[in-house]
């Protein structure tokens, strides 16, 4: 029983380091880059730098790095109202990009691992995206 418990724990904890996970993440990032280039780049720009005072950056953005669930919510539902990113206020509107849960997971994995951002091998899945609800 203990052995089973230990090995299960080991498998779960070690799953982040499994080559299958790395490969899945890499593939997701690649798909995510395509989504980004088509949908997100016009506002957040090629290096995730955004547009000063208009569209927030994604590169080394505290909003994304510290509260990724808020980022998923934005990508899934769009975003309105004031937010603060790296100390700067943004009051625009992000239209709902109209992506499905797979695409949202892919683009999240891409932005979390681009331009100096790293997710430390953690991966967002479509299932996780599915669970994110819009906060009123």
């Amino acid at each position, binding site marked *: 029983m203990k052995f089973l418990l230990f090995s299960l724990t080991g498998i779960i904890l070690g799953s982040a380091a499994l080559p299958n996970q790395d490969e899945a993440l890499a593939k997701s990032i690649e798909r995510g880059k395509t989504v980004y280039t*088509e*949908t997100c780049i*016009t506002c957040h720009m090629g*290096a995730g730098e955004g547009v000063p005072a208009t569209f927030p950056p994604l590169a080394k953005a505290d909003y994304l790095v510290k509260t990724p669930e808020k980022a998923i919510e934005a990508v899934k539902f769009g975003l309105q109202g004031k937010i603060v990113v790296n100390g700067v206020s943004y009051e*625009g*509107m992000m*239209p709902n*990009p*109209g992506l499905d849960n797979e695409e949202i997971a892919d683009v999240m994995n891409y932005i979390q691992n681009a331009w100096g951002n790293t997710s430390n091998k953690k991966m967002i899945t479509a299932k996780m995206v599915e669970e994110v609800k819009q906060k009123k």
Partner: protein
Amino acid sequence: MTNNKPFLKKSLPIALTGLLLTASVALMSTSGGTEEANSPKKLTEANFTIDTVAKGLTMPWATAFLPNGDLLVTERVGKLRLVKNGVLDPKEISGLPEVMYKGQGGLLDVALHPDYNSNGWIYISYSSPKAAGEEGDDGGANTALLRAKLKDHALTDIQYLFKAIPNVKANVHFGGRIVFDKKGYVFLSLGERGQKENSQNLSRDQGKVVRLHEDGKIPSDNPFVKTAGARPEIWTYGHRNPQGMTIHPTTGVIWEHEHGPQGGDELNIVEKGKNYGWPVITFGIDYDNSIISKDTAKVGMEQPVTYWKPSIAPCGMTFVTSNKLKEWNGDLLVGSLKFAYLQHLVVKGNKVISREILFEKIGRVRDVRQGPDGNIYVVLENSGKIVRISPKA
């Protein structure tokens, strides 16, 4: 000493008169005397009131004015709505085809036939998913145009007039603006669907403005009807993604604006058969800062009337012809998605003399129209509202 007194007596009346005259002139200037009576009063935001005439809309894209005073509104999510007396009718209008609501696609423009009162035709543009038998990518889509009549809350007599070919599997650049001229033709702007190289390709409805008869038939005198391999509906080419198009009230010439890449949004005069240059010439660069073209001009390609750098993401445009806005007659109002304001462009002939930003923070502007009441109506994507801008009495 004795000489000063008489001097003072003489000069005082003169001095006083001088003072009086100066004072009168000064007063005249500040109250706008003769000088300002001859030149138009410059309108500023202070001259206007903004009222909300519709709210609760979801991603509204365009509005049309029905003769009974109702607003007909497209919601990009795929719904057609009525606004009656300032209240959004909860019952949607039925009969729309399947619309591809994804990326920048969805239900787009709505425009009434110029003789709507007698024929009842409503024209609607939308992102149409690839149908069986159509050319192009599986899972792709492109812009289409239909017309229909409205009976209560239903579209009837639906006619599918046009579909841009080929279908493309990309979520960007659908264009979609509908304009009628005074000669019985209808024009539709088409984005290049993210494939810039196809804007110059006359065998594809990408990055084009097309001209059709009002029943969708191809005019026999379109510029490329005799060009081998060219699609006969094409009127002009070399566009990127035009989301503003309108007709000059007196010249009857069609003007459009289109999104540039990073910088290089353009305002163009649309003329038969001309090439507007995308991507061979552009005032912008790509979003990753790479160069799209080092050229901004080329023989055989048209220059814009004006361009915006940085981009303002223009959407919606109208000429002002209203009796209530005489100072702006003949000028253009352009909406900005990116900066959430309106721009007033002073137009003289084929030139833009000046541009000014007005109504900052009004919202993400999707449509700008002059209503039958002569006021300006603005459709706002972020707040789901339509507002009316009217001059104060």
